[in-house]
């Protein structure tokens, strides 16, 4: 495209490319790791896991958007995968939160540092 005649030529250096989305996704995934590894409350750990799943979804959607694959049948395969990730995330959240409530009922805490039932 003709940069000189474009009224937006000055912002062309800011043009959004695949790597922008990959960096954002990597940063959000890393924040999710930090939350999942360092939080004490089991529900906060789940929040970190949800953030990680979300970051992976962003990667799928970004690669789909920037794909060169002209094959009509699989052009939106990334979107379909994200739909399945959403499904599994919803199922995982329901079961994990039910387990958190169950553990709380027995132990009066969801503090992961104090849940050492499986310690040998």
């Amino acid at each position, binding site marked *: 495209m003709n940069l000189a005649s474009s009224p937006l030529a000055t*912002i062309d250096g800011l043009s959004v490319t695949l*790597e922008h989305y990959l960096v954002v996704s990597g940063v959000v995934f890393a924040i999710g790791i930090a939350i999942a590894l360092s939080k004490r409350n089991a529900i906060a750990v789940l*929040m970190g896991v949800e953030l990680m799943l979300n970051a992976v979804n962003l990667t799928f959607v970004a690669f789909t*958007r920037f794909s060169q694959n002209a094959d009509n049948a699989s052009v939106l395969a990334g979107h379909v995968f994200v739909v399945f990730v959403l499904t599994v995330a919803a199922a995982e959240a329901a079961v994990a*939160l039910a387990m958190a409530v169950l553990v709380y009922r027995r132990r009066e805490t969801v503090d992961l540092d104090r849940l050492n039932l499986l310690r040998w």
Partner: protein
Amino acid sequence: MESLGIIAGFWILSGVTVGASLAVFAVRNLLHAVVFLILAFVGMAGLFITLSADFLAVAQLLIYAGAISVLLVFAVMLTPMANRDNANSLYMLPGGAFALAFATIVAFVAIEVDWSQLRGDALNGRNFSTTVGDVGQALLGPHVLAFEIASVLLLAALVGAIVLVHEDERAPEDRGEAA
């Protein structure tokens, strides 16, 4: 991806998403953390829209910002005696260091690799008005087996969650387990 709207949208939404995710880590109240998590989900849905994924953006709003966040609030509310100070455990330093290293590696790879081959011609050439129809065709066409398995998984999760939190009124001895 050169239009001013997409560029401004990307920077604003990614700022909101990353800032809200950091706030989830930093705030000292678990319910505030849930609120910032919802904000991060909404920002992520906006990023999906800048990537022309309209169906996924709406699904993201419904499932993550709507359903999962309500589940999280329920879980926080159902554990009233648990700590709600969003405290970090002893693993905060190694966990944070690992996360920082991971972000550095991903950012390095993403910036160093030459992605200029990928310009999005597959979608640019299609002229979608919406992706909903095509996602639906793909779900019920080539991916129909996974679709059905996902529905069975959802049913199993539903039943499992109900069974797990179901309160048994009988005494522990009658249930055949040690009290």
